[in-house]
């Protein structure tokens, strides 16, 4: 239960961190809050030669507005994001999701960027960034590029980030005031990883759904966009929506797995039910006869 030996470095600038990552050629691991990485190090499931601690890079912290988008520095602590008035007003669904990330004690140290960069398939923040259309800014010695969250996740803990790349910003596009938020998670205990979860947002225009962004977590190897459900919602008048049918479409996009916590069938069944109920409650739809 002790990590294998490594060299520890704590750069204070992004340039310095990127230079170290470039030189390490894949032997380095970045640590932010460490609330997922430290267990992996302690269990020796991860054995980097160099641990690059980005907690001392002040430029990677804080929440701001960038045009109409909300920009979150990756080393912003989850507890700080949870208490942010700006996020509560602009992205309430993100705050709701944050309240389900780990425990009070791990949110005090865990970061927004760490969770998004790791890509645990049952975690709340990767799915929230996929659902809301977040853009992940990634920097290396080769320059800066922007990746759509939806294109970041390849598999459990596998992302399209190169070993020398560092997440340097997360940008959530604007969701107009008054948008509808969707969130529901089923877990065995508060703070546990979700068995099944869904998160998203809808905007309305003249009684119709104008825009929809919805994603699953714990329902496959990555966070999964509920594309068919989104397509079935957009442009439709709210009064004519069939929540049960849309939930079925949403589940059709998932690839749930069986593990010792729950079977794939359980996940599909519960997923369909929470999707339907969440949609119905959010839009105040009547139950189908």
């Amino acid at each position, binding site marked *: 239960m*002790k990590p294998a*030996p490594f060299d520890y470095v704590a750069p204070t600038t992004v340039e310095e961190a990127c230079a170290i990552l470039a030189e390490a050629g894949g032997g380095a691991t970045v640590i932010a809050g460490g609330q997922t990485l430290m267990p992996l190090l302690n269990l020796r499931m991860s054995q980097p030669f160099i641990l690059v601690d980005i907690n001392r890079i002040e430029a990677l912290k804080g929440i701001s507005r960038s045009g109409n988008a909300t920009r979150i520095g990756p080393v912003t602590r989850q507890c700080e994001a949870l208490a942010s008035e700006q996020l509560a007003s602009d992205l309430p669904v993100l705050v709701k999701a944050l309240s389900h990330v780990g*425990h*009070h004690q791990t949110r005090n140290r865990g970061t927004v960027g760490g969770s998004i960069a790791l890509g645990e398939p049952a975690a709340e923040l990767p799915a929230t960034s996929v659902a809301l259309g977040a853009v992940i800014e990634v920097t290396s010695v080769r320059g800066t590029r922007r990746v759509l969250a939806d294109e970041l996740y390849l598999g459990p803990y596998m992302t399209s980030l190169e070993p020398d790349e560092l997440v340097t910003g997360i940008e959530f596009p604007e969701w107009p005031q008054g948008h509808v938020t969707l969130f529901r998670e089923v877990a065995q205990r508060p703070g546990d990883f979700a068995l099944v979860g869904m998160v998203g947002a809808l905007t309305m225009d003249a009684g119709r759904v104008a825009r929809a962004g919805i994603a699953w977590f714990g329902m496959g190897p990555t966070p999964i966009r509920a594309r068919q459900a989104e397509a079935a919602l957009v442009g439709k008048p709210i009064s004519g929506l069939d929540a049960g049918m849309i939930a079925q479409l949403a589940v059709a996009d998932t690839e749930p797995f069986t593990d010792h916590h729950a079977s794939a069938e359980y996940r599909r069944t519960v997923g369909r039910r929470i999707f339907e109920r969440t949609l119905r409650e959010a839009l105040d739809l009547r139950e189908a006869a």
Partner: protein
Amino acid sequence: MSEHRIEMTINGRRLVGTAEGRVSLGDFLRVDGGYTGVHLGCEHGVCGACTVIVDGRAVRSCLMLAVQADGSEITTVEGLAAPDGTLHPVQQTLREEHALQCGFCTPGVVMTLAALTGGDEKPNEDQLLAAMSGHICRCTGYQGIRRAACRLAAGAAA
């Protein structure tokens, strides 16, 4: 395998030491500082027994490296009671509510409650109970812990 000079303030006392990069804050506090009230249980962030207060916030000391706490102010369970032995309000409440059995998880529980009730913002009952979900008591003595947390909540009659 890098060695680092580490300086921190623990319970108001300065501690200067050296540690390998991989040494956890929990191990450093126990081995180099002698603060054996820091109980390391699972060592992968699940049980909460090792919780200490770092710069005002309750964190798991097994999920933080000692070198990351360089320059920090730390409170362990040894730092709560007054020098004359008068218990901290959290400790006193836990005692009155019989909120411990074997006592292994207790220092972690105490530190989370002390961090949350010691600041300017007074958390309510729901917030304290939610924070208690970050602790596992293998004696399953949760009812006493719940009673103590409820008594410590804002607005609760002492």
